[in-house]
């Protein structure tokens, strides 16, 4: 049981290049999230998904796109990278707040992060 994994761990891009970050989870979680974390700051939500085939914008979605074609995978794309997108990107997954008649705790499981530098 690997939990949440992210690929790649590190990446350096030039301005204008594109790339896709892959997040995979093996916990059968419905919900998945992409965050970015800048130095000295907390995490900010970029996009999230409440199920296969659905995505929604978070707090800072501009410059990013996402796709959730399979339940276990959540992809984050940068179509034209900018230096302002230099950051550490974290993926997370969770159960819905209620599962059947059971209220689950508000726990998200995070991946190890991807450190992206845009020159």
């Amino acid at each position, binding site marked *: 049981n690997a939990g949440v994994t992210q690929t790649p761990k590190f990446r350096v891009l030039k301005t204008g290049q594109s790339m896709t970050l892959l997040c995979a989870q093996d916990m059968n979680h419905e919900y998945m999230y992409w965050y970015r974390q800048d130095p*000295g700051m*907390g995490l900010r939500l970029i996009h999230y998904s409440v199920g296969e085939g659905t995505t929604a914008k*978070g*707090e800072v979605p501009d410059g990013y796109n996402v796709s959730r074609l399979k339940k276990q995978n959540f992809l984050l794309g940068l179509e034209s990278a900018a230096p302002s997108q230099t950051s550490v990107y974290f993926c997370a997954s969770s159960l819905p707040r209620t599962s059947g008649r059971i209220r689950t705790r508000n726990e998200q*499981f995070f991946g190890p992060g991807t450190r992206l530098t845009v020159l």
Partner: protein
Amino acid sequence: LAKTTQPISMDSYEGQEVNITCSHNNIATNDYITWYQQFPSQGPRFIIQGYKTKVTNEVASLFIPADRKSSTLSLPRVSLSDTAVYYCLVALSNDYKLSFGAGTTVTVRA
């Protein structure tokens, strides 16, 4: 999402108890209080969650007064490995989005 306020940093020594207080004056009736821990170069990790009074698990205790406008995370007998950033979050019981502030950097010294 309710805004939270917590100290930027705290220092402690091994074996001491660390208490981090978080203010959330605008907490709503259905909001839960959740704490996460983040080590350097890692993603955050869930520590504890509560609604009112006191919650205790193998890692920490969470104290919530009756008015719920604040909460205190208590880490008993800290060790060097407890050095981390601790985030206080308030989220609706039926909302899955979390809002992380800057957190509290706890440094434990020998």
